[in-house]
């Protein structure tokens, strides 16, 4: 029993991090299958069906089928319902690093293409992903590479490619590149642009298209990160990909996203990794595997650092909302009103497709302030307080299996287990048990029992512990 509990607790941890959480029945099923097998299933979405009726969803939300509108909602729907949870989690990961914003690009079809590119390349070679983002029409427009010409470069994309997308400003107190490298990088990407698109009036937006214009490409010799040649964009990416700084940069991002909140990215030059050993392990795998993200993730999920890192990350708003919806079992089918869900994440500080800057969202404790915390708690309490939600009903029924009467302590402990093995501080646990005690003996075979469970769920999601994943 203890082993089984340990396995399910570990599975709950894995599914919160490598996905958006799971109901207890799925945790039991996956635990029975085994940790290693589950990791492999998550790492291989190409051979494991996502299990969604996307054609039906697109039929209900008619604007999803040609990506003319509702692209953020479509993305969120897939996070909730995809069996390939890690695939969606990695799309969100890259969306938060290789950032573009619809507030500037103003083209959901083009944003959709970017997301599909993350889905296709997000667990492959990081080198290929950098080529993909450099050819991404949304990025080319967002960071002005379409304004960068032979003899009149715009440094914006070249700079961010180095600073925010691959290497970072510096590491171990040293700069990773110079201003000259930024200029040479920008020169290498001249000619990487987009076609003049069909305007959105009168028939709606069209997908933008990448175009390489050789006549606008600077064919001159460039010196970049110590190497000299007639470099084009892909040559520059080849050089970037083999830098130790790139291995460090990606490793820290993966660590922060999957294991434990790191310092914010701008401070990485001066602030060493909090767990150098695990970072080194990830860096080594980056090179050993030929820059393969999937291989790095495999090492990460099997590391002790990951397995021991339960509840050491503050959930992002997207993780909070998606995790709650998956817990209660809502939005498994299309229905009117999905816009509301999207707005909730926005009010908590994370608007999909509109990060605050090219730097993406600041994470960790920065997700939480007075306003966003109230939104978080109100949202989760509303959903777990609804006894008609199938996931809540399932928790009620499983608690009732304990017998006709359940003790307050047992009810608190079992409810925490069923929510995904949450661990409350002893003081908090005692307080909740005392609160239940005041309501008198807890009979599980009464109608009132469901209400008492939902009230307990609402108390649990209002705790500090529930903020963490």
């Amino acid at each position: 029993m203890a082993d089984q509990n340990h396995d399910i607790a570990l599975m709950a941890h894995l599914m919160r991090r490598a996905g958006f959480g799971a109901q207890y029945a799925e945790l039991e099923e996956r635990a029975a299958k085994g940790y290693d097998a589950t990791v492999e299933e998550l790492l291989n979405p190409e051979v494991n069906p996502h299990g969604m009726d996307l054609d039906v969803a697109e039929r209900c939300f008619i604007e999803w089928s040609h990506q003319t509108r509702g692209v953020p909602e479509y993305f969120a729907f897939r996070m909730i319902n995809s069996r390939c949870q890690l695939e969606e989690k990695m799309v969100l990961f890259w969306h938060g690093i290789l950032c573009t914003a619809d507030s500037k690009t103003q083209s959901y079809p083009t944003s959709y293409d970017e997301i599909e590119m993350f889905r296709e390349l997000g667990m492959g070679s990081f080198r290929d992903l950098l080529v993909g983002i450099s050819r991404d029409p949304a990025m080319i427009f967002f960071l002005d590479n379409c304004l960068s010409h032979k003899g009149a470069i715009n440094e914006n994309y070249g700079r961010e490619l180095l600073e925010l997308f691959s290497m970072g400003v510096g590491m171990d107190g040293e700069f990773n590149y110079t201003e000259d490298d930024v200029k040479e990088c920008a020169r290498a990407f001249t000619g990487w642009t987009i076609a003049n698109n069909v305007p959105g009036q009168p028939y709606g937006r069209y997908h933008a298209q990448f175009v390489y214009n050789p006549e606008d490409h600077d064919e001159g010799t460039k010196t970049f990160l110590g190497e000299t040649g007639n470099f084009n964009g892909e040559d520059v990416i080849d050089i970037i990909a083999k830098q130790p700084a790139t291995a460090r940069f990606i490793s820290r991002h993966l660590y922060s996203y999957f294991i434990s909140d790191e310092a914010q990215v701008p401070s990485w030059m001066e602030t060493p990794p909090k767990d150098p050993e695990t970072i080194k392990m990830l860096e080594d795998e980056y090179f050993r595997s030929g820059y393969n993200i999937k291989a790095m993730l495999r090492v990460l999920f099997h590391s002790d650092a990951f397995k021991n890192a339960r509840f050491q990350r503050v959930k992002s708003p997207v993780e909070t909302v998606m995790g709650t919806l998956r817990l209660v079992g809502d939005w498994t089918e299309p229905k009117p009103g999905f816009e509301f869900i999207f707005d909730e994440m926005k009010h908590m500080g994370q608007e999909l497709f509109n990060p605050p800057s090219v730097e993406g969202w600041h994470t960790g404790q920065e997700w939480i302030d007075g306003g966003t915390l109230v939104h978080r708690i109100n949202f989760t309490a509303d959903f777990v307080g609804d006894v008609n939600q199938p996931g809540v009903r399932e928790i009620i029924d499983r608690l009732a299996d304990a017998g006709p009467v359940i003790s307050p302590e047992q009810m608190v402990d079992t409810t925490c287990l069923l929510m995904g093995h949450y661990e409350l501080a002893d003081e908090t646990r005692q307080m909740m048990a005392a609160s239940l005690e005041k309501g008198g003996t807890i009979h599980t075979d009464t109608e009132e029992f469901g209400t008492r469970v939902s009230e307990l769920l609402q108390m649990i999601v209002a705790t500090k512990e529930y903020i963490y994943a």
Partner: protein
Amino acid sequence: MVTQTEIAPVTFQYSHVIGRQEVRSGNGFFNPVAITRDDNGLLYVLSRGTETPAFFPCKRVTVFHPDEEEVVAEFGQKIPPEDADDTTPNGSFMWPTSVALDSQGYAYVSDEWLNRVSIYDQEHGNWIGMWGIPGDAPGEINRPAGLAFDRNDNLYMVESRNHRVSVFTKDGKYQFGWGGLGDGDGQFNLPWGIEIDHNGDVYVADWRNDRIQKFAPDGTFLMKFGESGDGEGQFNRPTGVAVDKDGHIFVTDYKNDRVQVFLGDGSYVTTMRGQAGLSKWGAERVYLDPTIVQARNRALNLQEREGAFQGPIAVEVDDDGHVFVLETARHRVQVFSKQTAMFAGEL
């Protein structure tokens, strides 16, 4: 002597395009999903709209003349999702799917979320009634999709989630039905569009089975054609079907972004892929803003990209050889004229 033993070739000449993206009322549509025409040649287009509150109220039926391109009436109203329940006001839509006209010209609109049929008069589109009981027993409805009237004012309704066709009188009295989930003859998987031809035979777009099925008016299975794919005679989620007076069958092959044309026996004839230019209503919008005009002039492959079907979802025909293709993702109707070879002399 001229002899002719082969089937006369048929082609389709692009005529014009009607529409633009128009989120509220006026000269345009917003994610349109259904089209029909009345005896006077007026077209009725049903817009489904979107869920985005900023665009409320966005759903409606637009009635217009396809030649003059003038809107003559609009009706129906959008409700916020939180009001889409038992208290939904009369005449409003949530997820409208189809519009059909009875012999008197009254318009019937199906709503797959509210599981009901709303009825509007022919003069001003005033709501005059509704019917529909949710459920899966005979006479109850679950996710109504396509609608079509026969000559006797019986309403043939596709019920996507009950995977069947149910036939009602126009005031909602159940007559008979057929179907069930499956891929056998006479079974369906999330069917969508429906058409009744001049003989009273019934055609159903069997959406998830990627095929068209044909039935006698009483539901007796007659034939089927199509399979999954993107080749000739294959479909990727067919949504709409229409049959002209010559027996040509037109199918909106939704996810393949094309319309395929078949002979009455289901054999493949040709494919239409769209040729739209700038519509009259579109020009009204474009020429208000010189930057849009400039952008159009600069756009790479404008004609090819703008002209292609995007989400062809429903098709209508008339007895004069016109074909009206409705595109949900481009908020417009492309109009074509059928051209059949004429042979002189003795056959």
